[in-house]
């Protein structure tokens, strides 16, 4: 059977992520794929640059995997970086949609032990999700492609004349 695409299952990520944030008492959490694209997030606002965090975390994860491979390990354990006020946890796991990563930021109200405990619970919840939502109706990509030229013209015209 074909592996479901992330697009097909990502709507279901939001609720388990909220539960993880509530139970582990972390401040921020974002679920990303290996390319650093955001699938779900909780707690990010204008103070923190969500896509910047996601791209850097994907970079750390990718280089950690590559280092593990070079040293003959399949993968390294989760990553944990601690600063005086905030700590960062990057936990990776396999899902029906390939390798995903949870990036979370916490302070003294939580702890690495708590984060790891509820991370495991989060992963097992995700693994129990139905693999996809087949109830959506669909339109062909034709309309999208028809609008594409006009939208690109508008965007680039704005830039050139701006």
């Amino acid at each position: 059977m074909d592996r479901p695409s992330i697009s097909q299952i990502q709507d279901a990520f939001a609720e388990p992520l909220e539960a993880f944030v509530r139970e582990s008492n972390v401040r921020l959490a974002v679920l990303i794929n290996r390319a650093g694209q955001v699938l779900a997030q909780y707690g990010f606002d204008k103070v923190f640059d969500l896509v910047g965090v996601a791209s850097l975390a994907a970079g750390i994860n990718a280089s950690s995997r590559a280092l593990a491979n070079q040293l003959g390990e399949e993968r390294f354990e989760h990553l944990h970086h601690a600063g005086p006020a905030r700590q960062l946890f990057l936990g990776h796991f396999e899902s029906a949609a390939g390798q995903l990563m949870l990036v979370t930021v916490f302070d003294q109200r939580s702890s690495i032990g708590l984060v790891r405990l509820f991370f495991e619970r989060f992963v097992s919840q995700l693994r129990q999700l139905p693999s996809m939502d087949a109830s959506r109706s669909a339109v062909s990509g034709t309309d999208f492609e028809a609008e594409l030229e006009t939208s690109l013209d508008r965007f680039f015209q704005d830039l050139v004349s701006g």
Partner: protein
Amino acid sequence: MSLVNYATREITCKIVYYGPGRSGKTTNLQYIHSRVPWDRKGEMVSLATEADRTLFFDFLPLELGQISGFTTRFQLYTVPGQVYYNATRKLVLQGADGVVFVADSQKSQLDADIESFRNLHENLLEHGIDIRQIPVIIQYNKRDLPNVFSIEQLEEELNFRNVPSHPASALLGEGVFDTLRSASEGVLKKLARKLEIPIGDGAGGAG
């Protein structure tokens, strides 16, 4: 791999600027960053050495606007061009939806261009991607410098697959947006062909 979030009506695509060292990949992103209005871009992240050479990647998120009701976003990355950094170059290429190959038009750099293009083929193959399956755009950069090959000569040396190509002087901004537009179009056309875009109810939002 393009990501379509049905709940929040967002499409996110990744374009990687590839090419030999000092061909102008970072300059392309810097020019784009300097021209795009603040509400259409995020922070530019650069992981560079002390000498301002790209170490891991530069990253620039852009928002193109609405297409068929979907907010369309691009994540632009550059790779480190220096031969030494192939391991990190390979990592940045992971999940790319399209590639802009920034070639240096100077005669002295032709060998480096060819070597880098060959390296792109190899690294894509290591990710299981045949270069014919992914939109690739070639940019012939540094047209403002003396001692450059003609576009015809460069096409003959590099563009044997006849992919879209653009002359550019990235430092002056010439050809930068033509290249980006071409890459965006290639990536989104491929997405439109590949995907049926579902009309969900938008409940249970992710993202």
